């Protein structure tokens, strides 16, 4: 990067805000097409069964209903949704069909699509659809599923679809050789509960089919439009060149939105089927029921450490409650929970197995910090339990075990399949811990632990984390010099509300050495580039930003070359001052070169993840009479390599912490024994509000830039959430001496923990 501009590093106000603050955003439900029809989805109300018949007669007769689509209309084979990430052949049999056929496997599974003149009529028609399902026993928890008494996929003979193994060193030998006089083993069964991203905007798909050009345009795309286009092309039997996925404004993603769902096939199919634009907008009840769920793991883990606190090994088994099908990125969390369980700590021997069990619940996918929130909860719990057992202070214990800057890069556990190795890049984990403790004022707060003040029990805890980001393989950008002298930037990165337009224009402006106002940015849609890779795993500042940087370098070179011809000099005699090209004897404005149709492209490839890192500290006050826990203070510290926009970054950290607190205290997708979701609305699925967590302080730094990209940035969209579950659990232990094992920490759960029944004992 250069010194002429310095947008990068500045808290530049967001470009997006100008339209969003005025209600001029264009979310998918804001789009209108003449002759547009509306779809509603008939969903199974039974968690597991054989779908025997659907009677569409009455529904089709309702005035305003244009079509009712079932599996029969899809041709001889209902397509399945392919795996996008980690596509193992073993998992293909568990892929979700675009519409239920033969069996239904979760409440909410699509069985039919109604298309009508209004959304209300489409929903009226749902009430008129009759169906017959022969119920089968439902698997709700992993223990039942693992018993294989009621199989979701009979030909497979098992509900245990795949087991990952994460290995470093030799854990079994380490445990076998452990001398009880010199070491201690901590063994715990811990669980994290099912919850979900719950974006403010529900999903939506609007598909238009142009029969004349045989072209399908699908609006409402997000996250990975090019990959979704590839999947849709495969499923619907149209070449990719005849399909476009268009990204508009997106009301949050957090990893959930933009993966391929059944509706992403069904609505385009419907549009072709009826020959009219078809819009489907998910309602909140559907959203909680059918969007990718996440986070439901149970673990049985052992930690081996020396009596002086040095960790020797960790081993154990984790079960993932995956839901009824393996969706596009369902493997990520189960893989991560094992591979990244060690986090920033030097654990030399690791052997963790992580099994993906299908159950009769909504399928799962990634949600911010997938597998990392869960793994960190398990690990931080083990650390504090070990520290307590050994009489070592929780900070000292962590300091003793954090990786040292001089030891990096260093290996993490290798995960099989497919023998994927990972290494931590660079960083000083002790220094973010130091900063966190200082900002939090640990020395003053720590003595409050265990004290009862004004009727409330006080506790403190600290946690350290890493955040992986910048997933490859690459990202593409192109630039054009437009007739008005402005530069249009097209990039494959996608937006979900994270302020990416602003961040990328900051980078583009610094790279091009022109003001931000001179740049227009276009992102995400398949119409802009030949190939793009999207936003996930906190990759876009690094990947999109670096691709833009490279495209900018090339554009400047082309401008210099074109200017040289006009100014009758050599290209290396041309210097650029803002949007003017100067030679020793003359100058020409970029706008005057517009007729040359100057353009450039940049592609940035990356096969190494970046690791932002940091520490959190928390002070809680627990009311034993109600089980309510208040956050008295929460400090989050993170080093992100290079800060492009400190305010949007801070927004990510604080937003992430609050999501983590929601997942720790409030949010729980509860199923009953029969496989029915009980938390089907915002009255029961509780999100944090403005009064719940008012005291969170975030600090960021850029001490250790990433060595693998020209910006030096590390992905940093997920760090805020990762430590939260573990740190709160440890704070509760600090406050009460009781060891929590199971999320969430609702008031009732906390009270029950502190008041075990006689037969539970403690």
């Amino acid at each position, binding site marked *: 990067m250069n010194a002429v501009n310095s947008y990068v590093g500045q808290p530049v106000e967001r470009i997006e805000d100008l339209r969003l603050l005025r209600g001029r955003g264009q979310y998918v439900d804001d789009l209108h097409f003449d002759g547009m029809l509306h779809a509603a989805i008939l969903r199974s109300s039974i968690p597991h069964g054989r779908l025997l018949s659907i009677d569409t007669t009455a529904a089709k007769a309702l005035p305003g209903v244009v079509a009712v689509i079932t599996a029969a209309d899809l041709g001889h084979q209902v397509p399945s949704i392919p795996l996008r990430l980690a596509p193992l052949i073993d998992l293909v049999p568990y892929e979700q069909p675009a519409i239920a056929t033969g069996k239904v496997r979760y409440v909410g599974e699509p069985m039919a699509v109604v298309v009508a003149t209004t959304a209300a009529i489409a929903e009226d028609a749902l009430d008129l659809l009759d169906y017959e399902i022969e119920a089968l026993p439902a698997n709700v928890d992993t223990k039942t599923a693992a018993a294989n008494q009621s199989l979701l996929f009979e030909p497979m003979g098992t509900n245990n679809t795949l087991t990952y193994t994460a290995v470093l060193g030799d854990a079994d030998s380490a445990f076998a050789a452990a001398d009880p006089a010199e070491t201690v083993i901590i063994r715990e069964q811990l669980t994290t509960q099912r919850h979900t991203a719950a974006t403010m905007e529900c999903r939506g798909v609007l598909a238009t089919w142009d029969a004349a050009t045989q072209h399908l345009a699908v609006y409402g795309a997000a996250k990975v439009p090019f990959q979704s286009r590839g999947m849709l092309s495969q499923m619907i039997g149209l070449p990719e060149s005849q399909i476009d996925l268009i990204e508009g404004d997106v009301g949050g993603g957090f990893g959930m939105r933009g993966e391929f769902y059944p509706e992403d096939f069904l609505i385009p199919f419907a549009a072709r089927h009826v020959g009219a634009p078809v819009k489907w907008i998910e309602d909140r009840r559907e959203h909680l029921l059918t969007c990718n769920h996440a986070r439901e793991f149970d673990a049985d883990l052992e930690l081996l450490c020396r009596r002086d606190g040095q960790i020797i090994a960790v081993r154990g088994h984790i079960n993932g409650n995956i839901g009824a099908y393996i969706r596009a990125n369902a493997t990520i969390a189960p893989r991560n929970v094992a591979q990244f369980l060690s986090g920033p700590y030097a654990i030399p021997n690791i052997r963790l197995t992580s099994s993906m069990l299908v159950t009769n619940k909504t399928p799962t996918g990634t949600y911010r910090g997938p597998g990392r929130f869960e793994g960190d909860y398990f690990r931080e719990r083990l650390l504090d339990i070990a520290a307590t057992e050994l009489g070592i202070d929780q900070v000292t214990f962590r300091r003793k075990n954090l990786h040292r800057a001089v030891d990096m890069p260093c290996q993490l556990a290798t995960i099989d399949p497919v023998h994927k190795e990972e290494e931590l890049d660079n960083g000083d984990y002790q220094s973010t811990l130091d900063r966190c403790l200082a900002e939090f004022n640990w020395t003053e707060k720590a003595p409050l632990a265990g004290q009862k003040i004004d009727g409330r029990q006080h506790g403190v805890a600290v946690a350290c984390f890493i955040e992986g980001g910048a997933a490859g393989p690459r990202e593409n950008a192109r630039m054009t010099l437009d007739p008005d002298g402005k530069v249009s930037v097209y990039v494959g990165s996608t937006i979900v509300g994270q302020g990416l337009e602003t961040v990328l224009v900051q980078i583009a402006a610094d790279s091009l050495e022109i003001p931000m106002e001179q740049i227009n940015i276009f992102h995400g849609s398949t119409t802009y580039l030949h190939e793009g890779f999207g936003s996930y795993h906190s990759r876009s500042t690094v990947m999109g930003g670096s691709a833009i940087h490279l495209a900018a370098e090339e554009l400047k070179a082309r401008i210099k070359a074109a200017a040289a011809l006009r100014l009758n000099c050599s290209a290396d005699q041309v210097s650029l001052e803002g949007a003017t090209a100067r030679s020793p004897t003359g100058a020409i404005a970029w706008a005057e070169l517009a007729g040359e149709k100057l353009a450039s492209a940049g592609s940035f490839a990356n096969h190494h993840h970046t690791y932002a890192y940091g520490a959190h500290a928390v002070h809680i006050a627990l009311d034993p009479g109600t089980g309510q826990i208040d956050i008295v203070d929460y400090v989050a510290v993170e080093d992100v390599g290079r800060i492009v926009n400190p305010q949007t970054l801070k927004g990510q950290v604080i937003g992430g912490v609050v999501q983590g607190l929601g997942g720790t205290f409030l949010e729980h997708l509860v199923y009953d024994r029969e496989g029915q979701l009980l938390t089907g609305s915002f009255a029961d699925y509780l999100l944090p*509000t403005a009064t719940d967590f008012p005291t969170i302080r975030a600090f960021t730094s850029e001490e250790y830039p990433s060595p693998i990209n020209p910006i030096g940035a590390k992905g940093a969209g997920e760090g805020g959430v990762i430590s939260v579950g573990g740190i709160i659990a440890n704070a509760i232990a600090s406050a009460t001496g009781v060891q929590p094992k199971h999320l969430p920490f609702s008031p009732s759960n906390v009270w029950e923990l502190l008041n075990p029944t006689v037969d539970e004992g403690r």
Partner: protein
Amino acid sequence: MKLPKFDYASPATVAEAVALLAGHDTAKIISGGQSLMPVLAFRMAYPSLLIDLRRIPDLERIDISETCLTIGARVRWCDIEDDHRLTTAHPLLAAAIPHVAHHQIRKRGTVGGSLCHADPAAEMPGLAVACDATLTLAGPSGVRTVNAADFFLGPLTTALASDEILTHVTLPAWPASRRWGFQEFSRRRGDFAIAGVAAFYDPDGHGLAGNAHIGVIGVNDRPRRLPQAEAALNGTAADAEAITATAAVAAAEVDPPEDIHGTARYRRALLATLIERALTTAATA
């Protein structure tokens, strides 16, 4: 979650509204709509006709006399919050109403709507029972009054006939010397109570508690007073020991539900905590 089809009428008088109710089997009254609209959005009811009370005059008044406080069915929560007379005329009501839902809901939701909806965790039904309110109902054969204790029959179930409209609720006047406390516990600000207490007593000449009223929400299938707990408090000095004993009686007297927000065991313990806190406030404020 589009609403099911229904017809709509907005009559100008109570008599017209009653006639419409009597003439349609599945008609429903809509007042503020803050409870009814979500029911319709989830298609948990399919009324053929909604009868809107918005044009009917004289249902929006709060009248305070020496003997009683009369609240019209269409009085909104924000009207109660903004009526400064209530700080002295009925401080318990004034303290409880800000706990109802959220600011925007309180701009539309009405007293009558909440009473007729009868959610077991709602504040207004709890207050009505705690304060021995009477509800005035208008039907085809005229007007009748029902005691709050007899009005709430179970979750979302009241003694209101299908052709009756609640026109107002009357609370007895509030003596200046009364001691009271209100405590509610919910997951977040504005959520339905997991448990709630509206309690008061009148000290006698010796400073001992008398006429104790302890109304509770969220811990039974309907709002209730707790006569055994009240008996435990009456005649005591309402000191810490008496309050703890009262709370223990109350916890045993209720039959709390078990749901995703709390076990029955927890609710009992929570109720005991809330009663202790409410009565401590009452005794020491």
